[in-house]
């Protein structure tokens, strides 16, 4: 039993290690010493590759600032039946992340992006709060008809 768990653990860790190495350097774009917390309304969505960008307007004292928050590939979300319209302009979100190394830019990675009640944005299309993992029979993916 213990050996099984050992092997299983080794497998999971190894894959996690592979994943880190396979993707581009995570620390290349953002500054570990510049953590941010942003709260504000979405003003624009760039549903593009390699990274989606969510533009949000925050209030800093009397002034307003527009920040661009980097996400992942939209293709993953499209396969879950989500579209750009799933997240509407004007929706208020909370973002925590790290600013770009170039501090003259108001850009940050969306380490954790949620609605104001804490729910993650862009969850499964069925709205159960869980991404599609095959366990929710009511969750469907929009599939183009025929090829």
């Amino acid at each position, binding site marked *: 039993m213990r050996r099984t768990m050992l092997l299983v653990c080794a497998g999971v860790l190894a894959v996690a290690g592979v994943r880190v190495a396979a993707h581009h350097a995570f620390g290349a774009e953002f500054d570990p010493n510049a953590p941010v917390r942003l709260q504000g309304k979405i003003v624009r969505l760039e*549903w593009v590759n390699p990274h989606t960008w969510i533009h949000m307007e925050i209030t800093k004292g009397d002034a307003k600032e527009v920040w661009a928050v980097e996400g992942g590939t*939209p293709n993953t979300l*499209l396969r879950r039946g989500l*579209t*750009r319209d799933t997240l509407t302009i004007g929706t208020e979100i909370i973002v925590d992340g790290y600013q770009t190394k170039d501090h003259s830019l108001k850009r940050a990675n969306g380490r954790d992006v949620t609605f104001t009640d804490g729910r993650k944005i862009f969850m499964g299309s069925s709205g159960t709060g869980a991404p599609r993992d095959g366990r929710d029979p009511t969750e469907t993916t*929009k599939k*183009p*008809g*025929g*090829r």
Partner: protein
Amino acid sequence: MRSALGGLIAGMLSGAVLMSLGIGAEPGLAQQSAATAIPRTAAGRPDLNGLWQALNTANYDIQAHTARPAMAMRPGPVVPIPARDVIALGAIGAVPSGTGVVVGDELPYLPEALAQKKKNQESWLTLDPEIKCYLPGVPRANYMPFPFQIFQSDTAFFMAYEYAGAVRNVFLSNPGPAPVDSWMGQSWGRWDGDTFVVESSGFNDQTWFDRSGNHHSEQMTVVERYTMTDRDHIQYEATITDPKVFSRPWTMRMPLYRHVNAEARLGQFKCVEFVEELMFGQYRKVPAR
């Protein structure tokens, strides 16, 4: 299922109509022999498999135009001269003439959109997406000065473009509205006799029709018609509808020519690498001299 003979007759008739219109005239259609007859798939459809390319200057300007010194010009001491950025190219940077591919040679721009076209022309070097090796969109991909290859099977129709490695998968039934805007749009096709009709939508507003600043919005839809007139020619038509930019739909028309050299192959023009100095050179630690 159309018979091979029926297809031949249809091809000859459409060829005759086109000849009388003076568009895409293909000599010798009346003498089509087995050697030049339209190849067909097992299911009897025209077989569009192969390497194709347009032979015109539509990519410079889809409307009729005379030759001129350069795409980007500036006032000169006597007449306009090439812009500083392109002058070193000399005759290679000059623009060849063309008779245009737009039926009626008129683009029915709405006033604001026409003003945008002029702005596009004035700032061509910074605005033409082709300069940055961005995906060319539809229908421009079909008349770039590079070949494209059609892969047609009974269950798929796929177009691979040499330019920037652009691709279009053409669904064989209507998948419904595109879930997202894209550079190459979402396409689906069906047969109308011997013509393959492709409907495309879901475009972003980032691509142009040519280097002359002709543009569209994200509302654009395109209907293309691919009709083989003989083994080595496709008569190609594209009708553009974009109520945000044009007051009515308009059509472009041109032949597509098969690369008949047995050694012909789709080359590779992954130009993203070629524009790195242009787009990112300013960020080098030490700028290139």
